């Protein structure tokens, strides 16, 4: 048993050796051709090409005008996931992350500073636009991970709050 998790909802599927079952229903499918990133299959009465990108358990696919994105998780992944979210949730919100890749043009606060919710922490320039990265809550800057001129990736932690 494994699951597809998209938009927060979960669909279970099973590859039982005698066919593919999605949420208990058998899918009528015959693979005709298979290569990296591309599958051609007979699904029901149609022949379909599925183009996809699959990386780190995340699947993005395009098939006959349908775009779909999801995570594919095995039983073990699901179990690990549930353990992780129970303890770490509170801590995660204390990290301020870059919403996009870009260049830090200005760090507006210093370590140990007390900030209010909405205070500008960092100015991030991306695609020639300046974006003010604001504090998600009241707190104290416990850590600053970037300096002026730093190039950051999407989701990189810029600062931590306590």
């Amino acid at each position, binding site marked *: 048993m494994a699951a597809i998790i998209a938009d927060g909802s979960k669909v279970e599927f099973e590859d039982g050796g005698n066919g593919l079952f999605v949420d208990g229903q058998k899918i009528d499918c015959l693979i005709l051709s298979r290569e990296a990133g591309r599958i051609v299959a007979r699904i029901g009465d149609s022949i379909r090409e599925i183009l996809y990108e699959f990386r780190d358990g995340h699947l993005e696919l395009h098939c006959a005008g349908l*775009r779909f994105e999801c995570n594919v998780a095995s039983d073990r992944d699901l179990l690990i996931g549930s353990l992780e979210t129970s303890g770490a949730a509170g801590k995660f919100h204390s990290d301020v992350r870059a919403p996009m890749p870009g260049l830090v043009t200005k760090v507006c606060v210093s370590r140990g500073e007390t900030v209010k919710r909405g205070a500008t922490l960092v100015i991030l320039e991306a695609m020639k636009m300046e974006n003010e990265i604001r504090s998600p809550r009241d707190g104290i800057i416990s850590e600053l991970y970037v300096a002026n001129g730093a190039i950051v990736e999407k989701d990189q932690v810029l600062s931590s709050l306590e």
Partner: protein
Amino acid sequence: MRTLREMGRESIAIYSDVDVLMPFARYADRAFPLGGKEARETYLDSEKIIAIARRAGADAVHPGYGFLSENSEFAAAVERAGLLFIGPGHEAIRSMGDKTEARKMVAARGVPTVPGTMEPVESLEAASKVAAGIGYPILVKAAAGGGGKGMRLVKTRQDLESSLRSAKSEAQSAFGDSRVFIEKFVVNPRHIEFQILADSHGNVIHLFERECSIQRRHQKVVEETPSLAITQDLREEMGKAAVDAAKSCGYSNAGTVEFVLAEDGKFYFLEMNTRLQVEHPITELTTGIDLVREQIMIAEGDKLHYSQDEIRKSGHAIECRIYAEDVYSGFVPDTGALKMIRPPEGNWVRVDSGVETGSEISVYYDPMIAKLSTWDATRDEAISKMKRALDEYVVLGVKTTIPFCRFVMDHGSFSSGKYSTAFVEDFWTSDKRNDSVEGRKGSELAAIVATSGKDSSGAGSSEVVRRSSWTDQRFED
């Protein structure tokens, strides 16, 4: 470059280190490296560019529609180097590029302008006074600006200081000029622009309007022509105003006069873009005129090949801009490698794209992937064609604006033609994803992929994939 090839002319490309593998570099007959990655050391370095043009023996320089295309000093430097600048004279670029000067200039020709300051505002006090006078909401705009950069919407007095500061600093970094001015913000306006063509002999014509009201971050995403918002009488009136605006600065070559159209039917001059616009294909589709070819011939001194009466439009055209952006998290730019890109095909579907499978969408430049345009005899048919083309556009590896464009095409406000620049604010929410039917189908497809055997790229070898035995058995059947 395609137009040049059709005209039997040679093309020369310049490229930064990041772009060496981009299709444009090898499409050109010859291509020269600028050396460097950052825009300011490559596509914004006019000395380097002109030196290459001279060394290569170029006759003319086409500035495109970003970077230095609206930089009057670059245009002047090109002219000084004895090269043709395929665009307006540097004086016209300078005066139209200075938004406050432009407002004064066109107002003197009787073209209506938005209430606001005619001079840049210096201090917070002065700004606050002006804002109070015309009433919030207001727009703070870069005097040297364009494309939404250095622009902030200010709804209340409390936000004025931080907006003023960020607009100034953004204007400084984008244009090297921190001056800003204030304009009244017209609520629920429509953004309507007129394409004009002017020769160096004083003849100016317009090629009708483009409706560009679907925007995010004050940047256009969907454009169409003709606009449903204007009547034939208003079209003629605005067209005349556009021609007057162009004449006010002695304009030559292709340009665009932008207006805001208020709910009450009043229109105001916004700015003039002294270059070819990103959205020019839809005008080409409805008028049958290759604007780039006209640009080249005008630069070479030709008189306009058409009189105003000879310009005809037919049918309806729509353009959707495909950007690498995550539309579900506030349209933030996305970067990465395009694992696969496959554009739609078919009658009256036009794709202007600079990338291909394997191309890297980098942090260095605008994240535009392609412009997708469709034409058909009626608006409804052009919309149906656009839906079909958007659905067929395969882009894997980065997130794109395709789902948003598809949402626009489906939305009642768009199909009725009753939309404004507030479309995104009014209708778009980030949870507009797959409906349940599509979700179900998607899950089935995902299950097929996940169980279809180990991905030969090796990247996706999860537990599930490794233990799959089902597909192999099916092959043995």
